[in-house]
């Protein structure tokens, strides 16, 4: 039974990538296209990590700090896995719509929980791969790998996602317990999630507190002293680099033990949490005069209600907003350091600071994906919008508007802050604001159009459209590539044409891209929606 359940979850997960609406299989062609695009993104990310790893491995190996090299990449992979799966765990395990159906069948709850955890595990392995595989390839290229180190790496590679899964499962479990008491208070759930995330980051950065010495003053590192100070990291690194049996057993033991504890916690409370009714008091209905709204406002209101009621939607698809603001504020706070770094990097013909700030800002905007699952999220409610007298254009505009209402003000503020952080040039600040708002609109329109092409209505778990849907992943990857491209073009233009003309050209380019996308949605998108 466990095998069957895992099979169903995995099929559902991958079907979300290329299945169309009405369970219509788009065929191998579309699957190949999606997989090719994902592979392309993986390759791009692979090279990015590889270049960094290759630069680091030479120095680390020379200083006999191989263990630290592996430990650093494992640490980065752990962070990547955790951030990638934290908001998924609760929805995947506790909020699946088929929980009650499965519990009514002669299936052991442990099988249901393990099948759900398996999906999160697979995602963790994917996240881990994009960091660890290039790091291992770089190491092998420069230093070579012994058989024992290879075996140790494979085992640690399998074990580490268990640890990340355990931590994120416990987080999901805590959120689920809180949520069960405040079932209809999505904001409470979001706050609980953010508080836990901040707590995680606090502990994480406390642990690696002084490790910036690796970059700032590598010569000062004394191997033994460093290994003693960061003993947990040493175990992880040494288990591969030195094939230290004790460290290896400790890493495996801790990962397995953490997984066992997390599993027991979840299995014990699974039935209670999934079947518990809201602890909130019944809200008394009070008659009051209704506010009459126009059709467009009513549709935007409906989209807003959906957004603010779903913790998974808010946390997963709006993470870019939080990151944009936090990084922009940090950039302003550390303005002096930033400017001194930019001065070091300064090239005569281009302003590296402006290009880097623009790229970072646009990259962060690509992580806000509110419109990308909005068609799929209609789910079984699609009949409502199809049976009421509303224009399809208005429905799509409402979905685009929600994204802009939430993301555009943040994009403008973050652009202003980034502009201030790298200097006080009014032209740069205004350009940043306009380009970032236009980028937000572009991500918005790309997301909506891709979701029209790849809708998914038969989901049993909101995570499928919100996190695993082809439209969400493709939008993020496409937007990230565009953001890098825009920053590169800005650099290229400014090298030959000067600041103001380059800014104008970038704005014109963004306007043209947005106009094209809006026209495509209003023509092709409307036709697709009408046929859903």
């Amino acid at each position, binding site marked *: 039974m466990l095998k069957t359940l895992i099979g169903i979850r995995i099929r559902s997960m991958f079907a979300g990538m290329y299945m169309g609406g009405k369970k219509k299989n788009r065929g191998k062609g579309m699957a190949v296209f999606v997989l090719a695009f994902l592979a392309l993104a993986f390759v791009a990310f692979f090279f990015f990590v590889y270049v960094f790893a290759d630069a680091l491995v030479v120095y680390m190996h020379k200083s006999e700090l191989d263990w630290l090299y592996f430990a650093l990449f494992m640490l980065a992979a752990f962070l990547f896995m955790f951030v990638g799966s934290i908001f998924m765990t609760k929805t995947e395990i506790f909020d699946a719509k088929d929980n009650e159906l499965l519990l009514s069948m002669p299936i052991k709850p442990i099988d249901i929980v393990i099948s759900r955890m398996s999906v999160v595990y697979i995602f963790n392995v994917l996240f881990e791969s994009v960091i660890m595989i290039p790091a291992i390839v770089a190491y092998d290229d420069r230093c070579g790998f012994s058989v024992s180190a290879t075996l140790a790496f494979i085992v640690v590679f399998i074990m580490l996602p268990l640890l990340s899964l355990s931590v994120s499962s416990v987080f999901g479990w805590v959120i689920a317990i809180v949520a069960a008491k405040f079932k*209809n208070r999505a904001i409470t759930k979001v706050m609980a999630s953010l508080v836990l995330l901040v707590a995680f980051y606090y502990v994480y950065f406390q642990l690696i507190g002084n490790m910036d010495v690796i970059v700032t003053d590598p010569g000062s590192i004394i191997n033994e002293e460093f290994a003693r100070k960061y003993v947990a990291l040493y175990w992880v690194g040494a288990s591969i680099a030195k094939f230290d049996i004790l460290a290896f057993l400790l890493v495996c033991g801790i990962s397995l033990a953490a997984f066992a504890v997390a599993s027991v916690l979840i299995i014990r409370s699974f039935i209670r949490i999934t079947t518990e009714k809201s602890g909130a008091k019944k809200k008394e209905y009070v008659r009051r005069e209704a506010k009459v*709204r126009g*059709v467009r406002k009513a549709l935007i209101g409906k989209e807003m209600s959906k957004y603010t009621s779903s913790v998974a939607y808010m946390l997963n698809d709006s993470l870019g907003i939080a990151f944009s603001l936090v990084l922009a504020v940090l950039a302003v706070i550390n303005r002096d350091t930033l400017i001194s770094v930019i001065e070091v990097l300064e090239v005569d013909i281009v302003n590296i600071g402006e290009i880097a700030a623009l790229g970072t800002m646009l990259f962060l905007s690509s992580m806000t994906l509110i419109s990308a699952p909005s068609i799929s999220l209609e789910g079984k409610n699609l009949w*409502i919008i199809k*049976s009421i007298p*509303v224009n399809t254009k208005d429905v799509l505009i409402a979905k685009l508007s929600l994204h802009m209402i939430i993301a555009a003000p943040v994009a403008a503020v973050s652009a202003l802050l980034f502009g201030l952080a790298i200097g006080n040039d009014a032209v740069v600040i205004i350009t940043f604001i306009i380009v970032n708002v236009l980028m937000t609109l572009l991500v918005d329109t790309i997301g909506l159009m891709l979701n029209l092409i790849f809708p998914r209505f038969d989901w049993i778990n909101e995570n499928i459209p919100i996190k695993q849907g082809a439209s969400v992943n493709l939008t993020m990857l496409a937007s990230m590539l565009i953001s890098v491209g825009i920053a590169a073009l800005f650099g290229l233009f400014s090298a030959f044409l000067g600041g103001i003309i380059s800014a104008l050209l970038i704005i014109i380019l963004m306007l043209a891209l947005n106009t094209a996308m809006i026209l495509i949605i209003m023509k092709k998108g409307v036709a697709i929606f009408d046929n859903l």
Partner: protein
Amino acid sequence: MLKIVGLTKSYGDKKAVDNLSLEIKPGEICGFIGHNGAGKTTTIKSCIGILKFDSGEIYIDGISVKEHPLDCKRICAYIPDNPDLYEFMSGIKYLNFIADVYKVSAEEREKKIHELSDKLGLTGDLAQPINSYSHGMKQKLAVIAAWLHSPKLIIMDEPFVGLDPKASHILKEMMREFCEQGGAIFFSTHVLEVAEKLCDKVAIIKNGTLVVSGTMEEVRGQDSLEEVFLELEGDNA
């Protein structure tokens, strides 16, 4: 009020509805009967404009569903077989959303919402989120939403499923009252006793083809509707 002419709809090679024609006049309640998978929901969804059909025409109050879907939707209301409503809204928020879309004035919606929710015993739960509603409560909310904008035609797919006996009785009364005021109702049901007692007209569909339609008297003659239905099912088995 509803005129279906030669409606045909296929899913791939399978004809779900084949050349179906039917007419319902103002003041009539028409029951739509057929076995599972006969084509009832496909016909209903085509009428409300959710499904695009291959050929034929559907007119609501003389307006073509194909040519002017929005105009048709404005004078129609639809209740699906499974009331999947916006679970992220409260009952009152959902009703106000529907009222906004159909441009129901503040006074009118206030009056209607409370009149209908009092009648169906849902007033006390209107502030609750829909995800806390039982199936029957969702069905009641869907009924209120359908009646809210005073449509001319109400199309319902299995409307009595999930309703308690009292709510069922009230809904039947509402349906009769609605038609006495000049409206028309087209609904599918498997409960033949309900169709027999409530409907002025009945249409029986089998494998996508309308096998019989007419007034209740014409269709059943001296027999019960159940006997007629089972006989027709047997004939073509």
